[in-house]
């Protein structure tokens, strides 16, 4: 089960992502060339240099629900409608965090609590949002004001440790509680219409629309085993059919199918609501074609239903999740067992339809549940995989693995940085040394379609291959061995790994030798801290705030106030910092050492010439970060996803 099941509730509102933007360009990690100008607003496409990293929801309320085959739209239907969705009321909100400046396409939410609150501020249910990265990034928004983030995406995760202080009076909440297992709920939301212009009210704000439903043991947290619709998209942010990837699920009894169109349809501008793209129908093919189709005629399909996306309040009341009744459509029920779903719009010729998007070829699909990992030297982690065919577990099948750069690498910024970096900051290659993180070439699913991949970081770590920035990125591509030629994969389906560098922990760490370069980097990249709380670049400032630094560097990674907010500090660097903060010299303060001990900044061992050559000029309307990443990928020859689902 998941949010695509019953019962479920739908919410809509706003989110704030107050991300910091200086770290959108890897070259600003080089301390030796960093100048204060890089901290100015809109310099080098840095549209929010004083960002805090906060991710939170606001003005968010439950606007619909679904229970026992019935859509709920008002408090009269169920008192849960109209309640608000909020974050924790007794601690900091969550944080939105890139894995790395060279991997900005898997931004994760950390440390967020979600609560359902009634009109008297009473908490009805609450849970911890399991950290999750977005997927299905696409240019949903067609026009925008200056710097608008026209890309949209969706997040799927679970709420963990869910408690239900009070469900009384709400049949939907009672049913949701009864349908869930292991104190977990499934939660999915779509983020769009995000503003990056510092002069508009929407600055750092965007729309959010989502759904909460049941979750059961053994199910993936970050996608739903079901029917996966994969766009044919030569440029992955611009799907060929004009609609984005989505997932659907046939109910266990086969009597209904529920699809999530929450991130499927385009919008004109940030606040416009859904664009009219004409009539849209969900249908199932009467055959199982081996290739993506562009048109079908009415003899090739069995209609399931029209998607009422233009109906008044439809998106608001459903967040785009639509259930289609199949009780009177046994033909469709039977066809669904072995034939793909298609989303159609009428074509010019009679009885023909344009295929906007089609289910994965042969219904094959494999996905890593979590796909973002951070590994310390010598650490191993397992990645859960679920394989399916037409929504049913695909047992005893092989999954193949290989290296990929995915959408990683590059600078994240424009061709020119102003003022130019002196000395030059080379753009590091990623994925080197190749043995920094290893994994087996294949694994086999069990009868439930489940398999685990073990990632192993080398005990020595990747070294300082990226010079001025610690750690190294690795990408793991995966595909089913059974996947046919011409298979279209979701290009965002690969595993991203940040391997932390190893460092010896000295007996007596000193400011100059062990701390200054680390703290200077954070001070440069996150000036909100240095300007108003503690100037991390300055020993005299740092020693006035030892207690709070000890606390923040000691907090676990899932804590919203974990420092650094970017969660990019390896265990050995953290241990050195904590040891230093606890040390006492003759003056009772942590050891200063001498400037002569300051280590020279390491050179980038393998500069990425291809990435450097792919840098594009940023227009005034283009921000550093995801926009720049896409420009670079385009210049590097981003083409149709290959059969393994990953761009080369």
């Amino acid at each position, binding site marked *: 089960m998941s949010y695509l099941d019953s019962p479920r509730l739908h919410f809509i*509102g*706003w989110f*704030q992502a107050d991300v910091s933007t200086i770290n959108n360009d890897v070259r600003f990690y080089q301390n030796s060339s960093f100048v204060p100008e890089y901290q100015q607003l809109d310099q080098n496409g840095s549209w929010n240099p*004083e960002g*805090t990293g906060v991710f*939170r*929801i*606001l*003005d*968010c309320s439950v606007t619909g629900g679904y229970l026992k085959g019935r859509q709920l739209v008002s408090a009269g239907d169920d008192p849960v409608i109209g309640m*608000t969705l*909020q*974050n*924790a*009321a*007794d*601690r*900091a909100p969550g944080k939105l965090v890139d894995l790395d400046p060279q991997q900005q396409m898997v931004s994760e939410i950390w440390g967020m609590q979600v609560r359902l*609150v009634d009109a008297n*501020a009473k908490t009805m249910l609450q849970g911890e949002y399991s950290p999750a990265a977005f997927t299905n990034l696409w240019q949903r928004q067609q026009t925008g004001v200056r710097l608008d983030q026209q890309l949209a995406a969706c997040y799927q995760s679970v709420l963990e440790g869910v408690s239900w202080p009070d469900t009384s009076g709400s049949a939907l909440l009672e049913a949701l509680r009864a349908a869930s297992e292991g104190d977990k709920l499934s939660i999915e939301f779509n983020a769009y219409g995000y503003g990056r212009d510092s002069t508009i*009210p929407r*600055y750092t*704000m965007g729309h959010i629309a989502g759904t909460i439903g049941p979750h059961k043991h053994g199910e993936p947290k970050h996608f739903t085993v079901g029917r996966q619709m994969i766009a044919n998209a030569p440029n992955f942010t611009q799907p060929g059919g004009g609609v984005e990837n989505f997932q659907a699920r046939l109910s266990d009894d086969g009597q209904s199918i529920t699809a999530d169109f929450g991130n499927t349809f385009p919008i004109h501008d940030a606040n416009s609501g859904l664009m009219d793209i004409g009539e849209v129908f969900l249908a199932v093919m009467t055959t199982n074609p081996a290739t993506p189709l562009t048109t079908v005629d009415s003899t090739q399909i069995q209609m399931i239903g029209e998607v009422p996306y233009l109906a008044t309040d439809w998106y608001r009341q459903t967040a785009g999740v639509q259930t289609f009744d199949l009780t009177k459509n046994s033909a469709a029920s039977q066809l669904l067992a072995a034939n793909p779903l298609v989303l159609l719009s009428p074509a010019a010729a009679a009885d023909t339809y344009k295929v906007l998007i089609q289910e994965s070829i042969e219904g094959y699909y494999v996905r890593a549940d979590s796909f973002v990992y951070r590994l310390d030297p010598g650490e191993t982690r397992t990645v859960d995989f679920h394989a399916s065919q037409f929504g049913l577990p695909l047992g005893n099948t092989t999954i193949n693995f290989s290296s990929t750069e995915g959408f990683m690498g590059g600078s994240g910024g424009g061709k020119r940085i102003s003022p130019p970096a002196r000395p030059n900051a080379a753009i590091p290659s990623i994925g080197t040394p190749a043995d920094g993180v290893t994994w087996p070439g294949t694994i086999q699913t069990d009868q439930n379609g489940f398999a685990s991949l073990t990632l192993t970081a080398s005990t020595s770590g990747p070294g300082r291959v990226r010079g001025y920035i610690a750690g190294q990125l690795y990408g793991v591509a995966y595909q089913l061995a059974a996947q046919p030629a011409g298979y279209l994969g979701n290009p965002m389906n690969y595993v991203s790994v940040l391997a932390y560098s190893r460092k010896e922990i000295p007996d007596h760490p000193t400011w100059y030798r062990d701390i200054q370069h680390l703290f200077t980097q954070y001070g440069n990249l996150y000036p*909100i*801290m240095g*300007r*108003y*709380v503690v100037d991390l670049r300055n020993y005299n400032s740092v020693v006035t705030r030892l*207690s*709070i630094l*000890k*606390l*923040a560097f000691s907090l676990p990674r899932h804590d*919203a*106030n974990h420092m650094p907010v970017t969660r990019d500090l390896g265990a050995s660097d953290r241990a050195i910092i904590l040891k230093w903060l606890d040390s006492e010299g003759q003056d009772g303060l942590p050891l200063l050492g001498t400037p002569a001990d300051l280590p020279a900044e390491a050179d980038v061992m393998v500069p990425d010439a291809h990435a450097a050559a792919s840098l594009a000029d940023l227009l005034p309307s283009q921000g550093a970060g995801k926009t720049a990443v896409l420009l670079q990928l385009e210049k590097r020859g981003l083409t149709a996803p290959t059969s393994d689902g990953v761009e080369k």
Partner: protein
Amino acid sequence: MIKLDRSIIRGIRAAQTGADLHVYLRDAVKLEHSTIPPYLTAMFSLKPGVNQCIADQIRSIVIQEMLHMTIASNILIAIGGHPEINTKGFVPDYPGPLPMNIGEGLIVGIEAFSIPLVEKVFMAIEEPENPVHVDPPSMLAAEAHTEPEYATIGQFYDAIAEQIRKLGPSIFVNTTAPPQVVSPLWFSPDRLFPITDPASACRAIEIIKIEGEGTSTEPFQRPGDAAHYYKFGEIAEGRRVVKTPDGYAYDGPPVLFDPAGVWPLKPNCKISDFAEGTQARTRIESFAWSYSNLLNALHDAFNGRPERLETAIGLMYDLRVQAVALMQTDIGGDRGQTAGPSFEYVDTQGGMS
């Protein structure tokens, strides 16, 4: 002279049981808290890089007010009470009187830093019963202060201490931390310790008094470190207080103030002052939400979960950072003012629609 209704003192003296004292200690917790929003706002309004010395002075006072709030809470817990921090009524409706109508007519607001604010409001809040006379910079002594007609905050605490001594050790029922809050990382054990008996309670009360008012004979809370009243005096006079052959004078090193280094906040901003869907509205709501979360975390800390103090401290830093965006938000109009913080207790996250 700050005034306090004598009936409060009489009420304290009439207390027959520990429970009879709860209401006064709750008021003490409220009072210690009530000074933090105005002080914090003044400190936040100082732009970084200028007025650093003043910001540090106020910060040291704010931290001590937090200590005093913790001490008052611990005494309340020790004698069987429960601090109630997470309610709308806990926070004064600024601008307005402080709890117990202290200062009779003293109106405290949420304003940007200014010398008159320090002189007329902050020094009034902290004024001792008999201030030690400190000469203005390089001037001879002015006329002597007159005797007080009303009770002061110091006398309020004296009365509580006296009554605790009178009621004796039997009123101490929760003598450990937890449930009391003791945190060596933030406050040294000689200043924050478990309240176990009349002696420790009185010692803790003395800390509140001395850090706020100094002693009856000198303006320092410890050598070289002025008590709050005199620390504000240093800011107002522009020089540190030092010992002179004749007593004390604001003749020490300068405490420089650059009026250009202050955000021009509109005083006493409230959430409802700003239209939904504006930057000012979302930012002031965000600030109030974090502040309310801070009170909720503190409430937990003082009601059995002392580890939540660290969460509260984390939220203090969040407030600091949120104030930055708020105070840079132009609110329109021809006065060039920016938005200021609101310390309203709220239970929703909103501002856009």
